[in-house]
């Protein structure tokens, strides 16, 4: 568990705004390297680990595992007088979590920023009782405006600063657990598979740009052309304001996605693997389980049978996302058992 905590902390703390996944990419590459025959990075920035299976017949069978490594972020739109930065969202963010938050502005060098708004005594009664929207917020990097102009340009990204912290009962809190929890499960699964010498070839891909488009996953699917794919994602965790109809309990295992993006055959095999390993799972029924990556991977080339495993995460898209380490471990075990068992498809 200590090894997983330190891996997840490294993943959570690295930055990867959509389109600028260099920092997290390097962390993921290093973590995947011991368990793969080859780790490459494509033009998009997707990190692709290839573990060759024991099969001898051609054409070789291939499975794609995909977890996205980008995170929701902000994009600088303008530098105001006084050096205050105006911004828009990069991925879906709730503007209400930003006041009082700390961010890293990825300028020429990383700058520590603070999200603020109009001073309290100057807010009208109407303003002080409502939500401040993105255009009313700013990032303060505590530098003179000439210096800000030198360091930051519109188009630069900013990521939320989280404080990676273990909570009780194997839960952890930090930023970007969506989908670094999935990335961690994928790395752990590959580690188990390296030991098990599976028959199929495995492409474990940490994808880019999921939070805005899923185009990273599309590129990586075309380059590997898998026979089947499984997406390792996150889904909503239950909480006082997230009911059992809307979310999934933490610590009860991954949610198996069922819906338009998911192939029934893959789901059946995932259930079989769960039963075999004794891993508990939940069922997530939705139109598009597995996020944007599942949508594009399913539709790549002649169509890829796709399955989805999602780890429940509370407070998704905030700096204080909460996930269960046990869910990451069981997702990795289930994933590895599923792959190790692959012989024929369908």
């Amino acid at each position, binding site marked *: 568990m200590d090894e997983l905590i330190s891996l997840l902390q490294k993943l959570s703390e690295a930055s990867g705004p959509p389109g600028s996944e260099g920092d997290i990419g390097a962390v993921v590459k290093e973590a995947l390297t011991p368990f793969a025959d080859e780790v490459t990075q494509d033009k998009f920035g997707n990190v692709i680990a290839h573990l060759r299976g024991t099969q001898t017949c051609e054409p070789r069978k291939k499975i794609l595992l995909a977890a996205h490594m980008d995170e929701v972020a902000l994009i600088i739109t303008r530098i105001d007088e006084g050096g205050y930065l105006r911004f828009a969202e990069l991925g879906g963010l709730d503007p209400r979590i930003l006041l009082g938050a700390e961010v890293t502005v990825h300028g020429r060098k990383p700058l520590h920023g603070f999200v603020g708004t109009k001073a309290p005594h100057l807010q009208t009664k109407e303003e002080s009782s409502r*939500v401040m929207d993105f255009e009313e917020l700013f990032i303060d990097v505590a530098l003179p405006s000439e210096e800000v102009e030198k360091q930051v340009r519109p188009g630069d990204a900013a990521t939320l600063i989280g404080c990676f912290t273990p909570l*009780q009962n194997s839960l952890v809190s930090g930023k970007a657990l969506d989908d670094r929890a999935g990335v961690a499960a994928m790395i752990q699964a590959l580690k188990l598979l390296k030991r098990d010498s599976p028959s199929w070839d495995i492409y474990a891909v940490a994808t880019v740009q999921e939070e805005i488009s899923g185009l990273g996953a599309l590129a990586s699917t075309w380059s590997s052309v898998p026979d089947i794919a499984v997406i390792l994602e996150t889904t909503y965790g239950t909480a006082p304001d997230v009911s059992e109809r809307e979310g999934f309990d933490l610590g009860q295992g991954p949610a198996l996605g069922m819906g338009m993006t998911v192939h029934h055959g893959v789901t059946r095999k995932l259930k079989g693997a769960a039963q075999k390993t004794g891993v508990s799972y939940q069922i997530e029924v939705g139109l598009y389980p597995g996020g944007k990556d599942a949508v594009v991977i399913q539709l790549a080339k002649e169509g890829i049978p796709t399955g989805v495993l999602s780890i429940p995460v509370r407070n998704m898209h905030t700096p204080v996302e909460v996930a269960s380490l046990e869910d990451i471990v069981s997702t990795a075990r289930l994933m590895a058992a599923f792959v190790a068992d692959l012989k024929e498809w369908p």
Partner: protein
Amino acid sequence: MTHRLLEALEAFSNALGVSGNEGEVRETIASRIRPHVDVLETDALGNVIATKKGPKDSPRLVLSAHMDEVGFLITHIEKSGFLRFAKVGGIDDRVILAKPLLVGPKRIPGVIGTKPIHLIFQKEGHKKVAKAEDLYIDIGAKDREDARRLVEVGDFAAFATRFQDLGNGFVKGKALDDRLGCTLLALLLEEDLPLILTAVFSTQEEVGLRGAAVAGFRTSPQIMLALEGTFAGDFPEERDVSRAAVIGRGPVLTHQDRSMIGDPLLLETLIAAAEKEGIPYQFKRPLLGGTDAGRMHLSRSGARASVIAVPARYIHAPVALVKIEDVVNTYRLAKAAIQAIADKDWPS
């Protein structure tokens, strides 16, 4: 000097001390000042009152800084193990969503949770302010019993922000209102002083200047100065209107706030001291906020009172920002003020 100020500010800022639960910060401050003072007492409300002897015994000067910080009080533990809470002190509901906290004297980490944007977007839930009474703290407990091993109703919770030197002349941290004042006061007690100085590190300022009420009675000041962290509102749209205070322009002096009309003669003395020493200073926008001086100038038959404050951005939020130069200049002014007060003949 700068290094000593920052080192003390870091220790004081990281200590927990939500109003009414100032134990941890009290111990941090008391152990720092103990070797440098002649008398050190804690009163019934938890105020730390220290006296340091000097050559003169008049006027009776009291300097005060409050130890407490805004935060939260655990009001209920749900069957599910999530904690409900109330705010302690003036915190805008809009700055607390999705922030990390430390709960209770055991510093149990927790976070204020929120429903994800994906599930509220269609009903435009992100356009309604999330009220503190509807929010909850997640410490990762399985259920109520599990939570009660670590937390009880009545425990406090504080922002978990760690102090940090940003390397650009600014530092950030929680509770800078008023650990800034506590830092200045603690370090003044390490100096050779021209007169007897009574230092009050007060409690419960954020919930109605309560500690100061009894500390004023006990110390009976003739002259009192509150050392504060006050908010700087030097933000973009506000260039044509009063900006409360501005970062980098030195200590902030008060004509009048919501708790007090400052003593004109004392204010003049402070201004003269600043000008003599070449220390920049600025005035706080009148009628904003209040301080312990508001309570202590009414003690017994009354005291001449004023405020010297360090301007800081985003006070009463999870993280505040202060310019080191302002901290140093405010310290210089406070020290010069003590000398000027000692040198002056005060009409009784």
